[in-house]
């Protein structure tokens, strides 16, 4: 197994945490992991992304330009990374926020109404967990309970009362992606 993912969106959408959760969880399963954030100076309103690799074998380059999976949480990220998916790869986006979805025909594309769903769950922050669930359903590279363990590492102690909600969101994402068919 070697899964190369980029997760992209606005700063504050939980983009970096999603990658971190995957890495922590991967570590628990003794996988090789790497997490490479885009980083910028103190400036608001920018976009952020992280390249996350989870693999059974040693990871050569943590910086790559083609991905097995793209998870896009905003429009600029869709526009920027549509071309970056390997043929046959996976593209998941938050359909609540994205008006112009990707159009490629050689990849699997799923729009998840994650932000709306998160709002319905009364915590917009869990949007990222919904997206993560959707991804993991399609690519079960890591066991769900280990994802929760990973989440525990990333979520500061004082928010641990939110773990159940996050787990719920993760599962919700898994369900949601089942309910829809890829646009390709």
């Amino acid at each position: 197994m070697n899964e190369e993912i980029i997760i992209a969106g606005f700063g504050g959408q939980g983009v970096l945490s999603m990658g971190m959760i995957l890495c922590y969880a991967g570590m628990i399963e003794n996988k090789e992991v790497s997490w490479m954030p885009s980083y910028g100076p103190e400036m608001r309103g920018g976009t952020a992304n992280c390249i996350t690799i989870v693999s059974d074998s040693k990871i050569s380059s943590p910086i790559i330009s083609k991905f097995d999976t793209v998870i896009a949480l905003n429009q600029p990220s869709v526009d920027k990374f549509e071309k970056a998916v390997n043929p046959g790869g996976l593209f998941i986006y938050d359909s609540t926020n994205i008006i112009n979805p990707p159009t490629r025909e050689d990849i699997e594309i799923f729009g998840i109404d994650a932000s709306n769903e998160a709002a319905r769950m009364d915590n917009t922050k869990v949007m990222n967990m919904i997206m993560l669930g959707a991804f993991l359903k399609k690519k079960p590279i890591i066991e769900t309970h280990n994802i929760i363990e990973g989440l525990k590492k990333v979520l500061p102690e004082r928010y641990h009362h939110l773990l159940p909600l996050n787990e719920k969101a993760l599962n919700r994402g898994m369900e949601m992606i089942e309910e829809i068919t890829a646009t390709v």
Partner: protein
Amino acid sequence: MKELRLMKGNEALAEAAIRSGCDAYFGYPITPQSEVLEYLSKEANVRTGMVILQAESEVASINMVYGAAGTGKRIMTSSSSPGISLMQEGISYIACAELPCLLVNVNRGGPGLGTIQPSQGDYFQSVKGGGHGDYKLIVLAPSTVQEMSDFVKLSFELAFKYNNPVMILTDGALGQMMEKVELFEQQERKTNIEPWATVGKPKDRERNIITSLHIQPDKMEEINLKLQAKYREIEKNEIRFEETNCEDAEYLIVAYGLVARICVKAAQLAADKGLKVGVLRPISLFPFPYEKINELAGKVNGILDVEMNAGQMVEDVRLAVNGKVPVEFYGRMGGVVPTPEEILENLEKKLAGGKA
């Protein structure tokens, strides 16, 4: 027991400093390495009593390092490109006074204020000497977060073995990225007193003096000859590099740090196309693996040097190859990181003649 953690490169480096039994860190914030000072501020003093001091500038930092290193303890600083430039006078002093210490440059895109993105634009400065006069730092270039940790311990060992400053030359990407890292065990803080250290003169020894001033040229030349002899010794003992598929390679890529890993990926892509490409990664930039490269040059059709700069290490590669085979260069600048694909493309274009 293996202690595995997922850490940022900068944090791994800071954690390794604590575990190396480092006595003091003096530094000034600068992106993309402020996490080092931040991590240490939180962790170090409470755990080992290590001294952490945020200096008023990089000039002050390096001179605090000079003073503290003169006491024979394990001392370090870290910064990024513009900050390292400000340290050049101090580094020259430290090298001349033969003080062991660790300097870390988390290289960002230059010149000038530049960007905060990763770069290797400071190779010349680190390896040839950005400060005045003939001196050498031992320069180690990690390529993984693991090495960001391991090389801290190694650096202190080398620094005290040779009484020489050691620089870890890394970049913003390695500083900011996270990988698994296996932490080494906590080392004791240093207890022995170096015989040359300025710690207060007991009655039974001559006073110790730390200086780089020798106003008589012949005396100063002696100092230089001593330094040069030491550098030859280091060249004999401390060359480090990593080979990937170099045995039967048709082409060789030479690259250091994170870029070397991207090149390995490029070589994998090449292999998919049936082109045998080896990657030689110098780990010690000084001492540089001239001989190894010269040897490999005899076996391949051409060499591509890849760097995140306008072509700096490539001069050392050419000096190593000494005309044996063509040496080509591919580089990205200003914080741009090359992709495996473009590296392969350039290898094909510049050397393999579209062979792959």
